Each structure stands twice: as structure tokens, then as C-alpha cells.
């Protein structure tokens, strides 16, 4: 048995937020109770975690592990290692591998890799369409049988509304949520940044907020028509937020996520040195899809996460090598690393009073567990698997390149000073 003493235990699934002891036995939570209420009988390992926070292991519903096909960027092993270092005990990799995860064989391969890595739990996301080409349905049922927990064509949005409707109808039979990267490809074509002050300054074609708004509205309409669970990936606009709020008021099964970078950054981050000093190339390590939006959008996302209109935080961990980033801005790949920076960034928002502790933890545990249908995870209730994370909210550190265990190092947060760190991560009763 492992005894974790004197930590502040925060578990939104059971409404706990108090100084408590946690007892782990044979891979499951045996009990969570008042400090000192367990005697030492059978305790092989005991930790005094006074000053620390214990939460259910975090769940990231949106990562890219790049295996198979892009192992020079990341593998299931290195991505899972980044996950547990970052406090995540469960991750859901997107299907844009090569070959695409659009059939049970690829799903099984990813799960095999995850088993041999033996780090985080991996719940693959299957493609909506074969090859993510937006033409024919992927083998959704066979993948579901193998273990996928959601469907998405992510960065290759399904533009054909009739096909998306069929996908939702089909997904409903297997109770799989359909995750949408809401982007109208015609409006965003050729636009590597948001349309706004910065794109105007730099002369780049801009991706307008309407590109997201239109597709969020479509997904909500199709959700209403089919009853399927619809999840909006990485919301980036205030208009998208408003539509999700209304859909929830209508009682539709619509959920939404936001990334830490859309909460922490905005279009001005592209300009080294902020608004003033700008005779530089826009920074490719801030290039992502959806793009960083305006300050007003950033503010709306923060408020929506705080209020629960946005259900959860997902990292959109997107490893890319320097060959993909040390190039012209238009040619640079979209996306940044996220697994090891999500928690420290959210702790900044807690420190600033933007988010409460319980809301932050809920957005990383209960909400993503519900989305993926993981009834036993994201909780510290007795009898559930012992997936948990230990945080020290007071430790200050500067993120160094060598701290990142991913194969890639495309993080704009290298060099940033943080307060609050992931100390330990436990998956199924084992420290990872």
C-alpha cells in the first residue's frame, strides 16, 4: 500500500477540496480520508505531501503522437512520457498519422505501442473519413470495437455537410463523440494567421473569425438533427463561444475545449517584442490552427472556461521538427508542444484568479473523462484506478529546452518563468 499524507486533495468528481490522506492499494484508490485516519498497517511506501495538491490524473483529449509515420517528430513512447511528466495519465491521440488511423489495424498498432511504453493510458481517436479525405466514412464500428473513444478528422475538416451528418448518425450507434476542428476551408485558405491588426500590418492573408463561427454553427445544426455528441476542438473565437453557449442552453449534447495557448496568447504574440519592435519575421513557433486570435477573443475564451461554457482544456500537443519550423512563415507547420506546459500555464491562470482550483482540475479530469466515456477515470473515488497527479503550486522554475522529453522542441514557452509544477504522476498505482 502507498500512503500519500497531508496534501490538499481536490477531486471535483466527489466534491472534495480539503487536506486529506490518500491510500492506494493494488493499483486502485482504497480510500481518501482525514489526515491520520489510516494506521500504518501494510503501508510499504509513505509520502508526506504537505503543501502539495493531489488531483485525479489529468486527461488530454487532443494530442498528436505522430506514430505511425512521423516518428522523427514524436512516438507513442515519447509522447506518453511527455504526458506523464506533464501530469497527464490519459491521452487521446488524433488520427492524422501515416497511415491514418481510419481502420482497426492502425488503432491496434497504436494501442500495442502504448502498452509497451507502459506510461500513460492511450485512447485513440479514429478518423471520420477514410484517409481524412472527407469522401467516405472510415471503419468507425471496427475501430470502436478495437478501442477508439472519439472520431475526428481534426485539421482536415469535413467540409461536406451531408457526409458529416452521416458520420454523426453512424457515430451515435457506438456512442462516440464527433470532434470537430471548426474551420471553413474556403475562408481560411492561404491564411496563416488570424485576420486582424497583425495580419494587416504584416500583409498576410487573414483567417477570419467567421471561418470558425460558420462551422461551429453547422456542427450544432447537425447535432440538433442527429442527436450525436458533438465536441468542438480548440475554440478560438468569441463568436464560437457564443454559439456553444446557446447550444447548451438548448440542451444539446455539445461540448467544447480550449487550448492553453489560446488562453495565454493572442495575435500580438507573433510579433517578437509585442506591439512595438517588429522588424522581424512573425514567429513560426506561434503558428497554429486555429490561429491565435485577438485580445477580445482571448478574454472571451478565459471567461467561457471559467463559467463552464467551454468544458475542458486540451493541449493540442503538436510536435514538429525544426525543419518544419525554421522556414518561411507560410511554409511552417501548424502547432506547438503542449503536454508539459499545459498544467503550469493553467496554474498561472489560477494564480491570477482567472480560474479556481476546482474549475481548473475539473477541466482536466471530470470533463474530458465524460467526453471520452471513461467512467472510471478522472476521479479519486474509492475503488477506481489509482491515476493521480501531485502538484507543488509554490515551486518556481524556468522551462528549459532540455526539460522537454518530446522528440521535437517546438514550444514558444521555452524560457518562460512558471510558478507551480507537476511533481509526480501515478498511473494505475505506479509512479511514472
Amino acid at each position, binding site marked *: 500500500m502507498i500512503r500519500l499524507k497531508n496534501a490538499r486533495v481536490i477531486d471535483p468528481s466527489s466534491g472534495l477540496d480539503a487536506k486529506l490522506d490518500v491510500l492506494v492499494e493494488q493499483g486502485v484508490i482504497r480510500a481518501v480520508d482525514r489526515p491520520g485516519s489510516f494506521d500504518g498497517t501494510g503501508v510499504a511506501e509513505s509520502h508526506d505531501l504537505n503543501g502539495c495538491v493531489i488531483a485525479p490524473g489529468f486527461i488530454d483529449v487532443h494530442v498528436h503522437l505522430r506514430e505511425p509515420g512521423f516518428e522523427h517528430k514524436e512516438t507513442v513512447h515519447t509522447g506518453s512520457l511527455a504526458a506523464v511528466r506533464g501530469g497527464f495519465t490519459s491521452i487521446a491521440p488524433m488520427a492524422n498519422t501515416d497511415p491514418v488511423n481510419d481502420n482497426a489495424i492502425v488503432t491496434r498498432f497504436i494501442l500495442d505501442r502504448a502498452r509497451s511504453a507502459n506510461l500513460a493510458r492511450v485512447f485513440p481517436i479514429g478518423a471520420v473519413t477514410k484517409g481524412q479525405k472527407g469522401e467516405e466514412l472510415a471503419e468507425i464500428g471496427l475501430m470502436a470495437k478495437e478501442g477508439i473513444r472519439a472520431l475526428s478528422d481534426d485539421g482536415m475538416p469535413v467540409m461536406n455537410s451531408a457526409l458529416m451528418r452521416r458520420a454523426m448518425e453512424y457515430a451515435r450507434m457506438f456512442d462516440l463523440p464527433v470532434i470537430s476542428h471548426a474551420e471553413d476551408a474556403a475562408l481560411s485558405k492561404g491564411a496563416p494567421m488570424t485576420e486582424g491588426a497583425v495580419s494587416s*500590418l504584416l*500583409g498576410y492573408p487573414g483567417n477570419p473569425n467567421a471561418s470558425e463561427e460558420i462551422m461551429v454553427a453547422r456542427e450544432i445544426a447537425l447535432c440538433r438533427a442527429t442527436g450525436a455528441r458533438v465536441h468542438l476542438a480548440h475554440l478560438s473565437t468569441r463568436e464560437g463561444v457564443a454559439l456553444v453557449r446557446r447550444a447548451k442552453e438548448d440542451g444539446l449534447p455539445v461540448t467544447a475545449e480550449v487550448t492553453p495557448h489560446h488562453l495565454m496568447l493572442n495575435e500580438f504574440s507573433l510579433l517578437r517584442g509585442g*506591439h512595438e519592435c*517588429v*522588424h522581424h*519575421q512573425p514567429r513560426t513557433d506561434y503558428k497554429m490552427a486555429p490561429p491565435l486570435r485577438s485580445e477580445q477573443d482571448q478574454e472571451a475564451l478565459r471567461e467561457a472556461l471559467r463559467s463552464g461554457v467551454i468544458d475542458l482544456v486540451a493541449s493540442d500537443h503538436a510536435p514538429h521538427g525544426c525543419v518544419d519550423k525554421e*522556414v*518561411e*512563415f*507560410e511554409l511552417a507547420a501548424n502547432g506547438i508542444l503542449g503536454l508539459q506546459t499545459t498544467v503550469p500555464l493553467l496554474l498561472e491562470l489560477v494564480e491570477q484568479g482567472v480560474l479556481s482550483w476546482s474549475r481548473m482540475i475539473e477541466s482536466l479530469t471530470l470533463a474530458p473523462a465524460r467526453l471520452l466515456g471513461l467512467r472510471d477515470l478522472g476521479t479519486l473515488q474509492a475503488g477506481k484506478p489509482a491515476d493521480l497527479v501531485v502538484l507543488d503550486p509554490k515551486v518556481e522554475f524556468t522551462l528549459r529546452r532540455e526539460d522537454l522529453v518530446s522528440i521535437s522542441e517546438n514550444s514558444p514557452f521555452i524560457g518562460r518563468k512558471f510558478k507551480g509544477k507537476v511533481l509526480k504522476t501515478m498511473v494505475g498505482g505506479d509512479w511514472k
Partner: protein
Amino acid sequence: MFPDHLTTIRGIAPDTLRNFLRLGKKIKADPASFSTVLKGKTVLQFFVENSTRTRMSFEAATRRLGGASIAFAAATSSLQKGETLLDTVRVIQQYGVDAIVMRHSSGGSPDLVARATGLPVVNAGDGSHEHPTQALLDAFTLAEAWGSDLDHSKPFTGRRLLIIGDTLQSRVTRSNIHLFSALGGEVILSGPRTLAIRDLSLFPGVKKVDFPDEVIGEVDAVMALRIQFERGHKSLIPSVEEYRTFWGLTEERVSKMKTSAPILHPGPMNRGVEIDPEVADSARALVLDQVENGVIVRMAVLGALVGGLRA
């Protein structure tokens, strides 16, 4: 002091920008005495996006300063074979190059090259971002036409420039806005909304009107931009005739201008589209002066950055 690079107008001190123009004035007055400034120096004409006249202008400027040029042709280069921009430029650097003049379709890429090579880089146009020497030659030409005192810290005070056309995709416009503002002048933009810069919040003082007729009688110079059919303008304006009717510099429209106000065009012109032939050939159109002054200001820029000239 001059900067190490000229990749943008924005971010360079107004006095420095004025010093490029003052140096140009000296060179124009006595070009012979600058004929050995780049002796023994080699300038790479790194035109990743094709261009004929800007490249020839830079080559002429290099030669008139006594330097040599190496030209790069994107269409036949290793970039077509998948080599990255930085690998390409680092390889060429080994041939013995003292400075890089660069044109590229992606905004900001001259800075990427400047950081990677450590050589002086002059931006000859990057995407729709900036085209600093074009703005310098425009300002130089207008300063001549207006008789502006370049020793004055804000020589364009009280002067208004109207730019008509596709400002959205115009690097000429962006550089001109920054330079004109630095020299104390005011810029007004006009063009179809499908081709207008959408958000001017980072261009303080710049105004936008849909139709030039609203302001054309009150400005001190007009610049017509080329309608770039090669950049997919067909889907952004209904027809050439419609464009000419509302935004073209027709004789009738020009007759409403102040009599002293000159007309500029960065070239190449589409006669009968953004500018009528009669207007292009009239005395107030300074198109050929712009071309001549282009070589002068490029001599000033290369002389300052590579040849160590002072204002």
C-alpha cells in the same frame, strides 16, 4: 548611424530613414565620386520571387558603386528540388558574398535570412509586407517634386498622399505608410473593399476611403497601384471597366486634383486600367523619375549598409 539591415521601414528611426534620402541626394548630385564605394564587394541578388526591374535596378546600383553582383534564379535553383531557403542561402554565402538583396513571396523571410547569415540584407519585397527601397524612391521623388527640405526633421509635414488600388496585397503601400508617417506626412488609402487593408489599428494616422473622388482634390500626390491580375484579382473585382470607372486615374478624375500634385506609379503599369495612357504620359506623372531615383536610393542603401557611407 545606419542599421545593419534594411528589411523593413517600420522600426527604423525617422532620422535614419531621412539620412538614406539625404545620402541619395548627395549621390545624385555627384555620382562619379561614389564609383568605388563597393570596390571588391559582391552583392547577391537573391530574387526567390521573380522580378526583372527591381533586380536590374539593384544590379545597376551595385555596378555604379563599383561592386559586383551574383544573380540567383529561383526557377532553376535547388529550392525547386526541396532544399530549404536557409540551406540555399548558406551555400551561396560560401561563394563569397558581402550582402544580400532579397525578394521573396513570404513576408518576414528577409529577417530569417538576416539572422541565419549575419550578412547585411536589403529587402527588395517580401510578400505583401514591405518593399523599403520602393518607399524610399517614392519619397525621394516626391521630395524633389515638392522641394522638401530633407534637413528638416519632418520634411513632409502637411503633405497628403493618396494611394489608390489593392492596398491589401501591397508591400509598396505598407512601406510607404511607415515612411510617409516617419517624415511627418499623411497617407489616405482608397480602393475596393475586397482589396483594402482591413484593420488599420497598427497604422496610426492612416485613413481609408472607398472612392478616391471623396478626397482627390485635397491631396498633394496620388499613387496608383498596379492591379495584379496574376494575384487572382479576377475574383475580387468584377471587371476592368468597373475598376477603371471608380478607381482608375482617368483624365476626368485627374482634372479634380490640385494642379501641382504629382502622380506616381510603382510599375509595371496597366494602361487603361488603373491609369489612362494620357495621364501616364502627362508631365505630372513621375513614373520615369521614380525609376531613375530607384537606382539612386538603392546606391544610397547599399553604400550605407555595405560600403560604410555616412549621410
